[in-house]
Structure formats: structure tokens, C-alpha cells
């Protein structure tokens, strides 16, 4: 334990790899880089090799993004996405975790799953199964889905309204807390061989949830897993998302165009946490960050130029679901003239209306314009990360992959040793620690002040006499 305590006053970096079970996740065009393994995502060996690599380098977790639809807004079709492998094909992230768990002992797994389209009972069970199998190394990135095509894959005519999605998510979480925290007591499993009693029915209860969106009887089918509730991630900064994070989230995955924006987001969500009866420090902030490192500045520069050269702006436009096509106009056309004064904004790429189409497109091939980007020698990169930690106020990063596995390998070989010297990164894993304990250092379970804790022991659930006979 002592050697993993951060040096006095120094914040230790939470280090995750940002991944997705697809070819082109967020660095569009780069799947074509020589030696890139992205096309192997269908192979389970891609994931087991990656997991071993990350664990060898002391990563805290692999964070798996996901979508359940296709990007088909840009140019009114999915053509760009399909041509570029832009998150299609994409595979279920949860399904590759057990194989990664089988070849590691410490690596955590952040799995994205949407609360909008699937019944909560089966997902609660799948996560508990994963938490059992990994011995408490699972986190869930709660998303509400934003793709219109995703909605149409699940029988709806279009997207559910943003705030309503959060309302659904809030009730969804409520169902899951009841199943995870309330349905089984810690000592329900007796496994008394002599008396032929495996579990004590008095310590297991249905949840009888009846709400606006869900009706779930229970009991939860798996027994309590190590963390019970997996580590809860979420990623939004909208007002509804901020309230949601304040109440539920333990690790906020956030981003923004500037350090100032990030600082505001962090302050806003910490405030929401306090308003929800939690402590400001109950939430950690992890941002997407990008690192290109070389042994020398020249090496780093050459690598960066290689990556920038293969970058395909159209992938970013499609990914952003841009409702207009800047490449269809002469490069000197200003964006405001393309979309009009009240034109749409892309989902993630807020843009300056005074920019020309040409500047806008060129920007995608210029990595330095991205927030939380560091390129250079190991010590230069480490300097930047220390600024992010201390000045911007983040707690960790989801490392953008330009190249699989070079990005992770470079970080492990070049950056991690410098961060360790500076007391910014763990020097070893603590044996047998859960993901939550690793991040917060306060045990395997959610703190008592978290909303979910209210259901422990069956409190806030229907009375035991009703629970005794489900069908009475």
C-alpha cells in the first residue's frame, strides 16, 4: 500500500485506455496505419493481447465505448461511416470482457450500455455476472443513446427527447440499485452442506418495482457480487446530465473545448453531488486525452505527422453527425454562410461560424487544436499531464488510441516511467483490490451516502411479509 500512495500533495493519475469494439473509433482514417491492429477487433485474441499489455503497464482500466446504431446524418446517409469503418461494424463490448478478465488479475473494465432501449432486469444480471467473473473489476458507463438510427433499431420512430432519456435513466438506475443493493443481504448465501441449505430465503427479497417506465418484480438472480453496484461512469455535461451525475455517477467521463470549460463542468458536477447528499470528492473526473510521444522531440514530431497525414476529416464530420457538408462548398466559404446564422452545431465539434470551410476541414488534421493533447518527449508529455491534473483539475485520462497497440505501448514504455518517478502513477497494483477500491480507496462498495445505499437490507422495498410469497 505505502508505495502506491501518492507523494504528499500529489494527485495520482487514473489511467484508462479509450477503446471500442470497432475499427475506427475516434481517430478516423488511422486504421490504415501500418501495423495497426484495428481490423482484428472481431478476434478475441486482439482483446486478450491488449488486456495483457495494459496490465503489464499498470493501466487502471480499459474503457469501452459503444453505440447501438449507425451514424447516418452526415450527407443523409451511412455511406461515410460504412466506408470508413466508423463505429460500424461494431460489436458488443461486454462480450469480450470475460476473455480479457481470464488473462488478467488487476485490469478494470468500463463497459458502455444504454438505459434507453433494454429492460433493466437482464442488464443488471449480466453486470452482476461480470462483476463475479472479474472479482469486482467492472464499471458501467451509463449512456442514454443519441443516434436516431439506434432508436429506429429498437422500434421507435426517432430519438427519445434528451431530458426524458435522463428521466428513464434515473428510474432504470433505481431498479438496478434495488436489485444490486437491496435484493440480497450479504449473508444470504449459507452453503450449509449438512442441512441442505444453500441460501437463506429470509435474506433475499423481491423488489416489486413499479414506476413510470418499468415494472420489475425480482428478486435479483445473481447473488451479491464483490462490488454489488459496478463502478458508475457517465459522460455528459448537459443540465439533465449534470443532475444525473451528481446523484449517481462515481467517475465522470467528460471533455470540452477548453480547460476553462472543463473546470466549470467539474465544479458544476461536484456542486450537484453535494446537493444530492454526497461529497464533492465522491466523483472523479476522467477526460479523453491524446498523447503522441517519442524518445526525442524529432521522433514524436515524425510520428505525429504520420498520424495527421492519414487522418480523414470526413470521418470526423460523419462522427459529429454534422447536418451540413462543408466539403461541398468552396474552401473560402464561411461556415455561417453554409448553415445560416442559426445553423446546427455538430454534436461534439462546436465550431466558429467565422471559420471558413477550408480552415474547418484542415483543423481535423491538426492535432494540436484538440483539448488535452500532448506531443513530445516523455518529460514534456508528463509535464502536460501534471498540468491537467493540477491546473485543470482532472483525476485521470481515457487515452485516445491512434494506433493499436503502439499508443498504449508508447505510453507504457516512455511516459509511465516518468510519471512514476514524479509520484503520479502507481508503481504496482495492490493485490486483490476491486476497481472501486483502487479508484477511491474506501472499499469495494458504494459509500453509504450514495443514493443506492438506501436499499441495503431491504429498506425502501416492500415489506417482508409480501416478499415472502411472490405470488400470494
Amino acid at each position, binding site marked *: 500500500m505505502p508505495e502506491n500512495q501518492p507523494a504528499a500533495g500529489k494527485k495520482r493519475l487514473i489511467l484508462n485506455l479509450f477503446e471500442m469494439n470497432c475499427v475506427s473509433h475516434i481517430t478516423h482514417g488511422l486504421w490504415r496505419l501500418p501495423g495497426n491492429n484495428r481490423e482484428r477487433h472481431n478476434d*478475441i485474441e486482439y482483446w486478450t493481447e491488449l488486456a495483457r499489455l495494459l496490465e503489464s503497464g499498470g493501466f487502471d482500466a480499459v474503457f469501452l465505448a459503444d453505440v447501438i446504431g449507425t451514424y447516418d446524418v452526415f450527407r443523409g*446517409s451511412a455511406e461515410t461511416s460504412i466506408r470508413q469503418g466508423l463505429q460500424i461494424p461494431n460489436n458488443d463490448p461486454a462480450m469480450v470482457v470475460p476473455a480479457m478478465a481470464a488473462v488478467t488479475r488487476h485490469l478494470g473494465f468500463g463497459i458502455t450500455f444504454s438505459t434507453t432501449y433494454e429492460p433493466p432486469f437482464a442488464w443488471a444480471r449480466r453486470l452482476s455476472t461480470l462483476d463475479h467473473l472479474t472479482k469486482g473489476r467492472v464499471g458501467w458507463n451509463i449512456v442514454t443513446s443519441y443516434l436516431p438510427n439506434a432508436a429506429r433499431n429498437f422500434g421507435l420512430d426517432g430519438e427519445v427527447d434528451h431530458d426524458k432519456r435522463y428521466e428513464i435513466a434515473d428510474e432504470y438506475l433505481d431498479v438496478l440499485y434495488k436489485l444490486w443493493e437491496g435484493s440480497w443481504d450479504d449473508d444470504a448465501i449459507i452453503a450449509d452442506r449438512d442441512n441442505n441449505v444453500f441460501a437463506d*430465503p429470509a435474506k433475499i427479497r423481491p423488489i416489486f418495482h413499479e414506476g413510470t417506465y418499468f415494472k420489475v418484480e425480482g428478486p435479483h438472480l445473481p447473488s451479491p457480487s464483490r462490488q454489488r453496484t459496478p463502478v458508475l461512469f457517465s459522460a455528459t455535461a448537459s443540465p439533465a446530465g449534470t443532475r444525473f451525475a451528481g446523484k449517481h455517477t462515481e467517475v465522470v467521463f467528460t471533455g470540452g473545448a477548453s480547460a476553462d470549460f472543463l473546470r466549470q463542468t467539474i465544479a458544476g458536477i461536484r456542486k450537484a453531488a453535494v446537493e444530492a447528499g454526497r461529497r464533492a470528492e465522491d466523483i472523479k473526473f476522467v477526460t479523453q486525452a491524446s498523447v503522441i510521444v517519442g524518445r526525442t522531440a524529432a521522433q514524436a514530431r515524425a510520428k505525429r505527422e504520420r498520424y495527421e497525414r492519414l487522418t480523414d476529416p470526413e470521418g470526423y464530420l460523419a462522427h459529429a453527425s454534422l447536418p451540413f457538408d462543408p466539403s461541398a462548398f468552396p474552401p473560402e466559404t464561411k461556415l455561417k454562410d453554409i448553415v445560416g446564422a442559426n445553423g446546427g452545431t455538430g454534436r461534439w465539434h462546436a465550431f466558429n461560424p467565422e471559420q471558413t470551410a477550408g480552415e474547418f476541414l484542415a483543423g481535423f488534421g491538426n492535432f494540436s487544436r484538440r483539448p488535452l493533447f500532448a506531443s513530445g518527449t516523455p518529460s514534456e508529455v508528463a509535464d502536460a499531464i501534471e498540468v491537467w491534473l493540477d491546473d485543470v483539475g482532472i483525476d485521470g485520462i481515457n487515452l485516445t488510441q491512434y494506433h493499436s497497440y503502439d499508443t498504449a505501448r508508447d505510453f507504457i514504455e516512455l511516459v509511465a516511467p516518468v510519471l512514476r518517478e514524479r509520484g503520479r502513477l502507481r508503481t504496482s497494483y495492490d493485490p486483490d483490490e476491486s476497481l472501486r477500491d483502487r479508484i477511491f480507496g474506501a472499499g469495494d462498495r458504494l459509500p453509504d451516502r450514495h443514493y443506492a445505499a438506501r436499499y441495503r437490507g431491504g429498506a425502501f422495498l416492500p415489506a417482508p411479509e409480501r416478499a415472502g410469497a*411472490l405470488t400470494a
Partner: protein
Amino acid sequence: MPPGWGAVKGKGGRPCTCQSPGVTSTFAVPPAACVADQSGRYRPVPPKLRPRHPRTGHPNALSPSPETPLSDVTSAPPRPLHFAAFVMNTTGHIIQGTWRRPAAHQANFNDLDHWVSLARLLERGKFDAVFFADVVGLYAPYRGDERKYFEAGLQVPSNDPSVLASALAYVTEHLGIAFTASVLQEHPFNFARRISTLDHASKGRIAWNIVTNYLPNASRNFGLDGLTKHDERYAWADEYVDVTYKLWEGSWEEDALRQDRAAGIHADYGKVHRIFHEGPRYKVEGPHLVSPSPQRTPLLFQAGASEAGRTFAAKNAEAVFITAPNLAAASRDTTDIRARAVRHGRRPDDIKFFQGLFVVPAATEAEAKRKAAELDDWIDWDGQISHMSGSLGIDFGFDDLDTPLGELKTEGVQSAVGWIKDLVPDRPATLRDVARFTASNTRIVGTPEQIADKLARWQAAGVDGVNLINAEIPGSYEDFVDHVAPELQRRGLMQREYAAGTLRNKLFGRGDRLPGRHPAARYRGAFAPQPVSQSVSQSA
């Protein structure tokens, strides 16, 4: 009547004190392992101390099964039977009480290593597949509530079996991985994607056991008020598989994935199609998110032998899991379903039948019988009845063991009712028959040679494979792999080496994909005239 259970009947039983402290039980009938102490209260008795049955010598014994007449084994050259290990991600699957045996590890089901080592054992033994059963709710009340299931660990707690698949695929090379998933539990779009992900991860070794749901609690876990009517459940399943077929077979053309780095083309846009499914229950646009996996459609398993279930199997299934009580029933059922398949444009041999069997092997017959009797000492017969009771949705918990079942009409497992009646064609079936059916009727006790003889007879009755039930993990499978498999292999009744390719190819030897006459095949190329671009909603 064996002492200890059934001795007290009706609803006026004494309270049992062998439950957890502080719990007031209102059991009408004490559990099997209880006897009344001097104060008249019931206390648990360790198995070894229980009074023994006067005739068979073990405490909970049932009267022996009448010897089933066996048809003659044909003289056709032997072909290998297929073998699957019938397991569940839980403590008490089919044979209750045996989790307590000293070497039994099934209570470790939360642990990944437990399953990894089983998968390796099965692959060493040249098993075709591991087959995971599943339910997504509690069985219907027994003696008025669900207490028994928790106490027995009877399929609760239980974990999602699909989640094990990628790890098992990683540690094996050939073993098929079959898991059960109900149409109730997940939207077909997401389910199709999970299956395709796993079929990629396993390089084509995934099978899906398609089930509806017969447990009211499971329905209520998914927002319904109760069980969907039997035939309606199969209509639901029909549409569910239809959606998945469209996604698996029709959405991506074979050569859609180009992965051309130089040209910067990952997939060919013109060869990826939306499915635009609209049916009574589902509306699914597509395209499928996963590129074609080795099998595309996983190997399709099905169980359930009601009228609607047989029709569904005849149309869709490539492997049918049966639990025929005897050879005659196996012959009748396999013949019937094959004939139905032909009426649906398929061939009789398009379906493989897996019979659920449990074997107790030993070097000598006497030793095998001793092992079987010793095993019976551990079986929780009350648990066996509760399982059947809860499946049927009829609470047998208050009834005498010799009560005839009468004409049962239930929304539960219709097929089981017929099978129970088959057990004793000459007289009305009783609860005693139910217990025997669930634990010991399809049990083969003997030397490896005797077991091989019997398996050959099952094969002659139309069965293509065995879904091997366990009393303990890994012991039941170790016994089989180390003692029975060599004899079967010597006779050509079990494969010595795996065939190449996907699970489908290993079983049928006709390639990785469904044959063209399967209903899923109609969607191949069916969506090509509607490229994705033509129908995209612009309303973002």
C-alpha cells in the same frame, strides 16, 4: 412410502424449525431431511443418519423404474454420437442436493476458473459442446412460496451464461458453446449483436438455445403481468427469430467487408443493408452492426415438445434437446419432428436430436450400482419434485406422492406432462413418477461397455447426441471423459478428433452456414435492392 417426506400431508403441518433462526416457517410439510424431535419440532438430519429405505437401502429411494423394453440395435455401421455437457450457471441445475458432495464444485459457479477448467476438460474429452441452460426468474411456488428454490440453490442464484462465452472460447479451440436465451429478456436487435460478437470471438462455435418462457416470475421481471399464453409465446419467438435472421443473413453481403487500406475503404456501402422489419411486436431498421461472423446465424438449438414447440423446431431448429423417458418415446418424437421438418421443406437429417441422459459408470456393474445408490443418498428428492412442480406451475408441495396427476392443463411445460405419462403407460402417473423422471429415469448405470450398449440403442431410436446431465462438476464429466469416452471411441460412437471449422460444420459436415432450405436463408440478398442511402430519415 419412504419416511421423512409425504408422511405429513395436507395444509395443517407443523412449523419447521430447521430453517434460519428467526424465520417462522409455515411449511405444511417438513423438508425431506427433517425429522420430528421429542418436542414434535422438525430438525434437519444429516444424510448419512437418515433412515434407509427398506428395499433399496437408501433413505429417499423411489421404487425402481420398470425396465424399458429396448428395440434391437440395427447393424448399420457405427457413426459417432455427439456429446454436450448440460450445465447451468448456478448451483442446483437438474440433480438437486448433490452440490453438497465433498468433491462437487458447482457452488463455485461465480468463479471464472470453475468454467475455464470445465471447458478444458470437455475439450480434452472431445465433447462437441458445453450447453448452458438458463431461466430468468424463479420457479412457480412450491408449498406456497419460493423458499425451497433458495434453500436448494435450485437455479437461484444464477448468472447470465452468455457472459461466460468469450472466456471459454478463448481457452478452447474446438468446443462448441451453446447457451439458452429467452425471447423475453432482450430486444432482438441487441441480442443478434451479442451473438454475432460471440460467434466472431469463438470463430464460429456459438449455438443459441431458443426458448420462450414458462415462469410467471420471469415475465414479471420484464414488466408483464404474468405468463404469455403458450401458443402466443411461439408466435413471439417466430417473429423474434425472423428479426435475427434478417440481421444475420440479410443485412451484410458476403463480400461487404473490404478492409482495403490503400483505397481507404473499410466496407462497401452498397453491400450493407437495412432490414426494415415491421411486425406485430418489433420494428427494427438495421443495418446489423456486426459484420458477418463465421456461422452468421449461430447453430440453432431448441427444446420443448408441445405442438407449437414441435412446429417451431421443425421450421427452425438444427438441434433439438429432448428428454424422452424411454427409447420408444425418443423414436416417436424424433420421427415426428423430422417428418414435420420435411413438410417445411427441410430434410430429415437437418435436425440433430440430443437426448438428456445421466450416466454412472464404474469398472464393474456392482460398483456402478453402489455408486448410484451412494449418489441417491445425496439427492434432494423434495428438490426434484419442487423443480418439476415449479416448471408446471402446479404446486405439488401439499400432495401425497401417490396422487395421480390426472389430466393437467397448464400454461407451463406442456411437453413434460406427456413425457411423465409415458413413464408409466399402464397406470396413472403419480408424483413419485415425477420425482423419478427428474432425477433418475434417464440414468444409465453400469460399466463403460454397458453404457455404450445403451447409448447405441438410443442412437438406434433416432437420437444423434447426448446432453449429458451432471450430478457434480467436474466429477460427472471426469468420469465420462476418463472411463466412458474411450469405450465409445473404440466403438466409433464418439469422435476421437474434432472436425475442422465451425460448430455447424463439425456437426453436419456441410459448411459453416445454414443450408439454403432453412427459412433464414431466404433473407440472403433479400435487402439488396434497398441500399442504406435510400431510406434514411433526415430528421436528426
